[in-house]
Structure formats: structure tokens, C-alpha cells
């Protein structure tokens, strides 16, 4: 699997020969379909449209909810002092976390990819591991360690350590293919190391840095659990409070609108950033030249150890510490661990199935029949990344209570919310896999008399198996580590691992809470490491995997 394909995963499909917007040439391929609409196979197109509309429903509900309150009410609520406070909090946090995460990520990526630091493969795996630990668990471990970790400081610390791999992954990939000869030329012409790096390397990784930072921003905007634990007020914590207390549902939807707008800006920026990154991807690299560290290996190893210690060591050892503590002897342990794990497993597996099945036609249409319409459908799918899980969950609740009461508090609703939230992830995985299929095989199958459906089932699906498996696994893992939407939508009488953890940690029963957190981490980390190795052997875990995994880790 080519890493360029994976890093460019959220980028729009490469331009199709034949020019923009022109109906693609596919007459020969669409031959045999009973009906076509504007050159697309009718069934496939309708299916893709239906899926796209379904994943957009939460936006419709959100707008409806706002309209329900009346725009005259909403408007002043958006422009009130609280919005400003939340915006200031968010901007402060975003600046601090983005700068810190970028510095950490660039430093780590440079050491690992561009120097002869020992144990390179080990470090590659370790520095991305924080992605598999949900941020609310990281927040809980730090907070249980020292009450001083709270507010802006605590939030900055926890989110930097949790999210820096999002910058690390694309930057490491960009550094791997950056043209090293330019650097050597700059050095030979008398530039200092820093100047040479700034003039030759930095321009080559700028897009990756930007894309990664925007992913960090998206993660920050959607996070709820960690901020609640760390007592830091953001849009999500405030929306959660206002909606839940019914103080002002209109205010909650007004804040949701602002939050969605901010997130969509981040997604839009990311799409543009990764597009320019993809355009750059084809540049031939001048071979990998590793900088000799010499005695510098000591500080290099020390800093990598410090990074791993803070990002992985502290959360995991604190968790281990709480696991060995006797359960707080107040009352009994009321939520059976196995039962909670069962529900988590069941909902997550169903969501993975639903998201993968729903994303397949959209990805297939976009890859096999590139054109203006299919590209639009695919991009709308990616835009869902800009909808925080909390907003999706609240919109679905609003809808169910009023229109479809049997779905209210049902498991189906929770699974649907997961499927929508993680739809972009499934799309990314399937597209990356489908785009590499040799078309000739399908055409051959068709010429040998297979119907289009039969050809898809017998040729396309088996060959796309790695992508399908990756999509299933990623959505599954993300749903396992999801907290915010689960808290809103969990059916009555059900406790998942995440909600049980949340209940106990908010009663500061840290020892009991740690058991549920540990199972979450076990379910997320072990298959996570396995998946990353399997998806992209020999290289650092694939960016698609990493980027996608943080959806869950980001607490959406």
C-alpha cells in the first residue's frame, strides 16, 4: 500500500482525464447496466445518494432544531458573551496545543526518519500509540495523578500528548519522501543547518504540518470527556450542560451551529492542505540520507524517552496503579465488566458493519466512475468529519423524540450515530483500497459474461478485502473508545465500558473506573498495533489508520 495514497486519503480524487466536470468517458464500462443516469449506473448512484442524504440528516435536524427555536432567538444567542468566552478558550487552547504538538511531532519525526537514532522501528510504533488511548482516559489518569492538572494548563498538557501523533504521522510521511539532496546542496552552498532545513525541508513538509494541525484542531473541537474531567469550559462541555439541563435548548443549538461552523472550516482547510500535499507527492525523492547523530544520540534518545514516558508511560502506568488498588469499598461494583464489554462489542461491531456497507457504494462510485457528481457525494461524506459526535447525538435525540419515538433510546439509534460519525473513516479505507484495483480484472469478468453485480461480488469485493477489513476494524475501534455520543444515546438499562467508566470516575471511584478503562485500552491498543503493522508493513503505521483512529481517541 503506497503511503502517498494513504496520506492523501482525505484529498479529493485525482483529476480525471477528460477535464473537470465533463461527463467521464465510460460508455463502454456502463454497458450492460439496465439504466444509467447522466452516465452513472442508476442503482449505484441512487444508493450513493441515499447514503449521503442519510449521513447528512443530523445537519438537517440541527438546522430544524435551530429553526424550531426561531432564528430571532438564535441570533442574539450566538453573539452573546458566553460564545466569546468559549471562543477565547478554544483559540487559546488551539494555539498552545497546535504549537506544542507541532514542535513535538516535528522533532520526533526528524529524529526517527532523518537520523540514525537506534531502535527506529520501536520508536515509530511507540510515538503513535497515544492515538489508541482515548483522551478521556488520558485526562482521567493525569487528573487522578495530580489535581494541579486542570483548566487551560491541564487541557493543553493532555491534548498535546494525546493529539501530537496526528501531526507526527503526515510529517513523518512527508519527511520520508522529502528530497534530501536539496538540503545537501544548501549545506554545500554555505547555509547553516537550521537555514538549510528552513529553506529546503520545511517547504516540502509544510502541507503535512498544516493538515496535521487542522486534524488537531478538529480533535480539540469535538473533545468532551477530557475537558469535563479537567474542568476546562469549551463549546462541547457547554452544549452538553445546556442541552441536558433544558435551561435553553435554543442556546444549545446556537452553540452547536457555531461549533459545526468552526469544525467545517477546519475540514475545509484540511482538504485544501492535503490536496496540495497530494500534488507534491509525485516528486522524486533524492534518496534517504540519515544524519549521523554521533554523541547527539544521547539527548535524542532521552527526548524520545521523555515523549514516550509522558504520552504513553504516564497514562498506562497510572492505569496499572489504579488497577492494583483495592476497589473503593463503597457499595458494590454494580456494572458487570463482562456485560459492559459485551454491549460495547455488540454496538461497535454493528456500527462497523453499517458504516462499511454504507460507505462501499459511495467509494465504489467515486473510484470507478469519477465525475462531478460522484466527487461531490464523496466530499460530502468527508465533510461529516466536521460534525462533533455530541452534535450528531443531540440532533438524533431531538429527531427521535418528535418524529420516530420507537427509535428513542434504542440500540439502533446509537449504532446509527456511530455509523454516521465514523462514515468518513470507512470511506477513506475503502477508497484507498479500491483505487488500487486493476480495472482489467473486472472488465475481464464482465466480458466473460458476469453481470455487473456478480462481477462486483466476485472480483471487486475480494480484491478490496484489505480495505474492507481495515474499514471494519477502524470503525469498530473508534466506536469502542467513543464516549460523548454514547452518554447521550445509550439505551435504558445498558452500561457500556465507556459509560460505566464515566459513572465511576465522576464518583471518584478511580480504582473501579480503571477496570473499564483498561478493557477499553486493551480492545483499542492491541488490535490497533496489529492493524497498523498489517496495513503498512515496514513503514510507520499508515496515516489513514492513524488519522482515522483519532476519531475515536478524540472522544467523538
Amino acid at each position, binding site marked *: 500500500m503506497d503511503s502517498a495514497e494513504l496520506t492523501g486519503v482525505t484529498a479529493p480524487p485525482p483529476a480525471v482525464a477528460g477535464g473537470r466536470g465533463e461527463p467521464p468517458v465510460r460508455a463502454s464500462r456502463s454497458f450492460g447496466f439496465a439504466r444509467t443516469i447522466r452516465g452513472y449506473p442508476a442503482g449505484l448512484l441512487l444508493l450513493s445518494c441515499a447514503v449521503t442524504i442519510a449521513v447528512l440528516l443530523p445537519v438537517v435536524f440541527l438546522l430544524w432544531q435551530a429553526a424550531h427555536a426561531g432564528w430571532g432567538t438564535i441570533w442574539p444567542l450566538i453573539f452573546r458573551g458566553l460564545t466569546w468566552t468559549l471562543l477565547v478558550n478554544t483559540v487559546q487552547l488551539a494555539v498552545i496545543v497546535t504549537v506544542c504538538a507541532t514542535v513535538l511531532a516535528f522533532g520526533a519525526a526528524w529524529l526517527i526518519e532523518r537520523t540514525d537514532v537506534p531502535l527506529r522501528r520501536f520508536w515509530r510504533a511507540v510515538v503513535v500509540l497515544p492515538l489508541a488511548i482515548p483522551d478521556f482516559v488520558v485526562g482521567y489518569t493525569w487528573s487522578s495523578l495530580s489535581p494541579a492538572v486542570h483548566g487551560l494548563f491541564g487541557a493543553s498538557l493532555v491534548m498535546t500528548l494525546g493529539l501530537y501523533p496526528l501531526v507526527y504521522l503526515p510529517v513523518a510521511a512527508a519527511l520520508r519522501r522529502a528530497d534530501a539532496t536539496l538540503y545537501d546542496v544548501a549545506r554545500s552552498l554555505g547555509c547553516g543547518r537550521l537555514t538549510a532545513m528552513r529553506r529546503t525541508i520545511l517547504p516540502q513538509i509544510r502541507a503535512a504540518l498544516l493538515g496535521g494541525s487542522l486534524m488537531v484542531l478538529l480533535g480539540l473541537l469535538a473533545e468532551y470527556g477530557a475537558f469535563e474531567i479537567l474542568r476546562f469550559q469549551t463549546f462541547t462541555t457547554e452544549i452538553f450542560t445546556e442541552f441536558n439541563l433544558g435551561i435553553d435548548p435554543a442556546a444549545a443549538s446556537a452553540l452547536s451551529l457555531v461549533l459545526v461552523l468552526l469544525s467545517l472550516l477546519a475540514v475545509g482547510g484540511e482538504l485544501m492542505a492535503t490536496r496540495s500535499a497530494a500534488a507534491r507527492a509525485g516528486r522524486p525523492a533524492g534518496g534517504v540520507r540519515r544524519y549521523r547523530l554521533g554523541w547527539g544520540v544521547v539527548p535524542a534518545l532521552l527526548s524520545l524517552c521523555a515523549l514516550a514516558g509522558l504520552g504513553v508511560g504516564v497514562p498506562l502506568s497510572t492505569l496499572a496503579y489504579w488497577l492494583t488498588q483495592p476497589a*473503593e469499598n463503597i457499595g458494590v461494583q454494580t456494572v458487570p465488566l463482562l456485560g459492559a464489554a459485551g454491549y460495547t462489542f455488540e454496538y461497535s*461491531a454493528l456500527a462497523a458493519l453499517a458504516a462499511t456497507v454504507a460507505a462501499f457504494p459511495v467509494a465504489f462510485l467515486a473510484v470507478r466512475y469519477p465525475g462531478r457528481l460522484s466527487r461531490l457525494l464523496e466530499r460530502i461524506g468527508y465533510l461529516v468529519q466536521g460534525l462533533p459526535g455530541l452534535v450528531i447525538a443531540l440532533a438524533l435525540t431531538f429527531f427521535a423524540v418528535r418524529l420516530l419515538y420507537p427509535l428513542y433510546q434504542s440500540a439502533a439509534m446509537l449504532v446509527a450515530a456511530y455509523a454516521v460519525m465514523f462514515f468518513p473513516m470507512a470511506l477513506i479505507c475503502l477508497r484507498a483500497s479500491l483505487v488500487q484495483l486493476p480495472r482489467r480484472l473486472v472488465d475481464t469478468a464482465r466480458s466473460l459474461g458476469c453481470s455487473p453485480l456478480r462481477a462486483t461480488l466476485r472480483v471487486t469485493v475480494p480484491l478490496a*478485502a484489505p480495505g474492507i477489513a481495515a474499514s471494519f476494524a477502524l470503525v469498530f475501534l473508534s466506536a469502542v473508545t467513543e464516549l460523548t455520543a454514547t452518554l447521550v444515546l445509550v439505551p435504558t438499562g445498558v452500561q457500556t465500558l465507556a459509560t460505566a467508566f464515566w459513572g465511576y470516575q465522576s464518583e471518584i471511584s478511580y480504582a473501579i473506573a480503571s477496570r473499564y478503562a483498561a478493557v477499553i485500552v486493551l480492545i483499542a491498543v492491541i488490535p490497533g498495533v496489529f492493524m497498523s503493522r498489517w496495513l503498512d508493513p515496514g513503514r510507520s503505521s499508515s496515516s489513514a489508520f492513524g488519522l482515522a483512529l483519532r476519531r475515536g481517541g478524540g472522544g467523538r
Partner: protein
Amino acid sequence: MAQGGKRVRKAWRVMSLAAVTGMLAAVTACGSGGGDAPANSLVLYNGQHEQTTQALVNAFEKQTGITVTIRSDDEDVLAEQIMQEGSKSPADVFYTENSPALMKLAGQHLLAPVAAAALAAVPSSVSSPDKNWVGVSARVSALVYNTTDLKASQLPSSVMDLANPKWAGKLGIAPGETDFQPIITSIADTYGSAAALSWLKAVKANAGSHDYPDNETLTAEVNSGQVEIGLINHYYWYRLRAQLGASAMHSALRFFAAGDAGYVLDVSGAAILASSTHQAAAQKFLAFLVSAAGQRIIAQTDSFEYPLRPGVAANPQLPPLSSLHPDPADTIARLGDGSQALSLLQQAQLG
């Protein structure tokens, strides 16, 4: 290419595993979900501490054979949910930590009358004046203070003294907790809402960054010395002591002067939803909560609340309820539905 083939085969194995788990999950989901709850079952919306409720439910299920499905959340969240759900609410019984959440639903005519026998089991002063919910247990508001930082003689005797700037940086609060609201209502009723608002603003300024999400955290922070003094309900301190053990306690509890506006008795109660289709089973559950058996569970587990049924003694670690002197003016009716407190909290930008 050979490697690619291997990977595809590997992927197939993962995929078939995934498909099987997916189908299994679907089958179990269909088995567990769907269909209305049978007549011999109840849905309980629970705002009380989960361990207490679970202990009560376990005993009730054993005694009656009625199954109880619990949805736990903060009482204000659940009250709001019930109002959103209206007549379609899946809840049969609502069990809260404080009376205002119940009064709010009573005001919306969402509660059914409680059987006279259940109401008669506890003093009439701790149940709904309109007989549509029953009081189950009670707590009393108090100060918790760090014994290393402060001596008992330094403590304020009135809740109003907490507004004094001398507590700046030393006071911790959890204003998001519903337990905080009856205190505000009591102050507003005694001194007027303007005085209550300036008290809230001063308390907010004194607390500064010591604004905690819940009383459990607040109590633990006072105990560990992060903050010197906090306004809580008595049982959080006893629960923390049960969790940590007496040797780890660096804090103590102190009640205000008799009859002080901040010395409030909070009643935890339960109601039956008017929309419930399981009225008979729900009445049985309420009757169980105030029965000797139910009340003993409250007294003997680590809930550290005061049982309200005469003749059932409280946990011996607690001072007897009769030795406490909360503000006698704070009747159920006066504490009301909490809307005044909520609006004051919002005006002080604490809500």
C-alpha cells in the same frame, strides 16, 4: 505480488471473522431489543447514587419478582428528559436526590398520586404537599474543612460568611450540582433574591478556580488540602471516609449554627409517572422504598443518608438526625422546583 496475495488472504480471514461477529451481534441485538417491557417490569429513571439504588433494586426484585431496568443520570438531566418525552416517557418511576426535580415534574402534571399507605410510612413534612411523590431519605448541608489548614474555631457559623473576602482562594464549591440549589433557594427566601445574587457573586469570586464539577471531587480536594473549605452535603464526607479509610482523612465536617439559611435538610424522593402503564408495580416499588426493609438498606449500606421512616435508625456513624437543627423554614414547598435558584445561578454566571 506474492506478498500482496498473502495480504489479501489474511484480509479475508479478518473479514470473515468480522462478518461472523457482526452477524452474531445483529442476532443478539434482535434478541435483546424490541418489544414492549412485560407487565411485570419497571423502568426506573435514577438520579440517586447508583450503588444505593442498585442495592434497593436488588432487594425489591428478590422480594417481588418484578424486574427493574435502571437509567442513571443526574436528576436534572433526567427531569428534563422526562419533560421532553412527555406522555410517551418510557420511565415508570423517577427517584431523585433532591425534592426540586420532583416538584418541577409535579408542576407539569407529569406525576401520578402516591398510595396513601406509602405516604403514611414517613412524616408528611418530607413528602409532596400534593401527595404525588414520597420522601425516602434525607441529607443535611454542611461545611467540610481541611483540619491541617483550619481549626474549628476559625469556621464561619453562617453560610453568609462565606461571601467574606477572607475566604478568597480558600473556598471550594460545586455549583453545577443540584445539591447546591436548595441552599441558594433558602438564602433567597430568607434574605431576598438580590442578597442571594450578591452572595453568589462573592462566593464565586472567593472560589476562583476552585469550581468543581461535583461534590465528590470537592470533598476529596478539601481532604487532600488543595482547598481549605467547601460547601457540601454531609454524606459526601462520610462516603469519602468509607472509600479512603479513617486514617486518610485530613478533613472534618461542621454544621452551621442552628437555623442558619445554609443549614438545609434535603429530601430524596420517588414518584410514579402519570404516563406509566405499570402503575401497580410502580406503587409496589415506592412502598418498598419506604418499607422497613428498604429503609434499613439505606441505613446500613454506605449511602450515609438518613432514613425517614420512624423506627429505622440511621447509620451509627452519623449524628442522630434529631441532634441536627436545619433551618425549620425550609419546607418542601419553600424549596420548590429550583427555578429561582437556577435563574440566580445563571445571573451569577455559575449555571
